[in-house]
């Protein structure tokens, strides 16, 4: 069947125009650039202050504003970083942060995605009420759950040492224990975000896959998840950051200092160095490094709308 080739529509985007037009366009865009750069700078001021301060001596920090360091950039010091990085166990704390954060975020995302798929694309009695309760638990403050969960963990403790990883198999001072706790605390938001995103996928796509012979699992893994990469990336970033920066849960559930994450280590640093800003600023900057890498690695997924071209309208 010889169908005629209909011609590709020309793109409206790049019409070069004359140099004068181009110059006018550039002028029109000036306020845009001013606004973007201005806001970005405004937002960066505290961070810049942090970074700059982390390279200054305690006397300088106490004596003059951080902006003075930018004027005379030559008396910067690495002493603060030396102090932070020479802490014993810091490498292990860094590793602990990763051991805690990666599985915990993975649990949240996977479990939430399963639930969100059921909420978005299956019909069952009590669906909306259940969603209401589940997402409503978003408001439960973590502090509120600590005592009951702690009591539960003590009761269910399994005192078997996990090889390589360290810590108990379950209970307090165990990685699985804190994975599940973090995994659960992240769920309401994750379900809410993913339910919204999944629900916005075109119904036709799901149905086409079902007719193509896909099971629920296949629809989920081969259609829904690939199409939800932007939402999953966003969720991964947020969940990673919240878990990485958590102090309270680690404080309560990880008694063993060998299992403690960076935040706990830094908090201890604060108490041993007192209110010495300079060390804390350096430590804060070290702890930010991984979240920033994660953010830069995943942020390209926000840049392109992946749904373009699937269905019309």
């Amino acid at each position, binding site marked *: 069947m010889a169908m005629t080739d209909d011609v590709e529509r020309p793109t409206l985007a790049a019409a070069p125009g004359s140099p004068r037009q181009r110059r006018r366009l550039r002028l029109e865009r000036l306020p845009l650039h001013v606004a973007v750069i201005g806001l970005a700078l405004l937002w960066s001021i505290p961070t810049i202050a942090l970074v700059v301060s982390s390279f200054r001596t305690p006397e300088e920090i106490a004596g003059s504003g951080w902006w003075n360091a930018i004027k005379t950039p030559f008396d910067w010091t690495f002493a603060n970083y030396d102090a932070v990085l020479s802490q014993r166990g810091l490498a292990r704390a860094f590793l602990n942060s990763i051991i805690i954060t990666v599985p915990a975020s993975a649990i949240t995302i996977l479990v939430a995605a399963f639930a969100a798929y059921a909420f978005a694309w299956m019909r069952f009695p009590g669906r909306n009420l259940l969603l209401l309760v589940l997402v409503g638990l978003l408001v439960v403050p973590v502090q509120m759950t600590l005592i009951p969960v702690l009591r539960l963990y003590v009761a269910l403790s399994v005192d078997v040492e996990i090889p390589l990883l360290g810590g108990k198999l379950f209970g307090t001072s165990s990685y699985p224990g804190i994975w599940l706790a973090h995994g659960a605390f992240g769920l309401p938001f994750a379900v809410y975000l993913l339910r919204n995103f999944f629900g916005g996928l075109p119904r036709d796509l799901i149905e086409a896959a079902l007719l193509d012979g896909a099971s629920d699992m296949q629809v989920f893994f081969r259609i829904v998840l690939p199409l939800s990469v932007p939402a999953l990336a966003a969720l991964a970033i947020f969940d990673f950051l919240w878990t990485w920066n958590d102090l309270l849960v680690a404080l309560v559930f990880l008694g063993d200092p060998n299992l403690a994450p960076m935040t706990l280590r830094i908090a201890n640093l604060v108490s041993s160095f007192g209110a010495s800003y300079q060390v804390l600023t350096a430590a804060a900057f070290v702890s930010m490094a991984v979240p920033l890498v994660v953010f830069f690695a995943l942020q390209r997924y926000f840049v392109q709308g992946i749904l373009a*071209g699937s269905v019309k309208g």
Partner: protein
Amino acid sequence: MARISFDNVSKLYGSVTALNELSLDIENGEFLVLVGPSGCGKSTALRLLAGLEEVSAGRISIGDRTVNDINAKDRDLAMVFQSYALYPHMSVYDNIAFGLKLRKLPKAEIAERVNEAARILGIEELLKRKPRQLSGGQRQRVALGRAIVRQPAAFLLDEPLSNLDAKLRVQTRAELAKLHERLGATFIYVTHDQVEAMTMASRIAVLDEGVLQQTGTPAELYAKPRNLFVAGFIGSPAMNLIRAQTERTEEGFYLCAEALRLRLSADTGAALAAWGGPEVIFGIRPEDIHDPRYPRADVEPSNLECSVDVVEKMGSETYLHLRVGSAQIVARVDPRSEAKAGESFTAAVDLKNLHFFDPATEQAISVTNG
């Protein structure tokens, strides 16, 4: 491939009846078009057959198998969606191959089938592209390709042409008909456009408000609409429908409505008299109203006095919008006609092709005239 049947199938959404006791048999290899205005239940019927919705009452079977409780994926049907529903993250090749991969066919066979489908549809060069890099027409063909490779028991097509521009739609219409012939498969095609139904269908089923109105070949539906709805829906321009009284005078039978006065043949008059009540709705297709100066050969004319509102010259024919009292009718006349807007005009009505309907039941009245 197998015969598909709907047996008293109903679908309710809450208290709304989307489909009311549909009974319909679709033979192997048919090109059946479900046609009707939006909300008539045609898409619901298709989705019930596909297994995307659950039947509220009745039975759907494919071959000997009742499929009411069978998964969509196990019904061996392929569907082309109005939106095309291409998987945006897969290449054209992967889109077409998806169903075969899920069925775990050997790689070589998948490649063979995909290439064959691509060849049939003329999209071989597009296989590596992503859907967003395709034009509307190309996407539509990919959607068709996805269905073809499956070699399903039947193809379900849900308004597949409505996102194409007018020219492409006409072209694709002919190509779909050819494709049907070539594959010899059952096509079940849903559309609101009666032109698509008339041009492609081997059989049409007209639905309105969830109720099946009539089934038949395009010619049957056109010549013998069973009720007022089908009469008005099939044909373009639509059949002229006018409420009138039958009158018997000494000269013979007349149809009267305000300014309209049309003399009927004796046979027709007798049949109407036998039917009963004086009030009828009569229908006449535009091509059965002629300019008396350019009559067609086999016409049994009766004169109708009217005035001309608008003249539309199409080249091959001319449409006259005529006014008879408050009734407006459209005539499709010989292009040489010299009728002018604003003038009065005597139209010749072909008495052999009049349709009559009971105003109460809206059913056709048989007058056995041709």
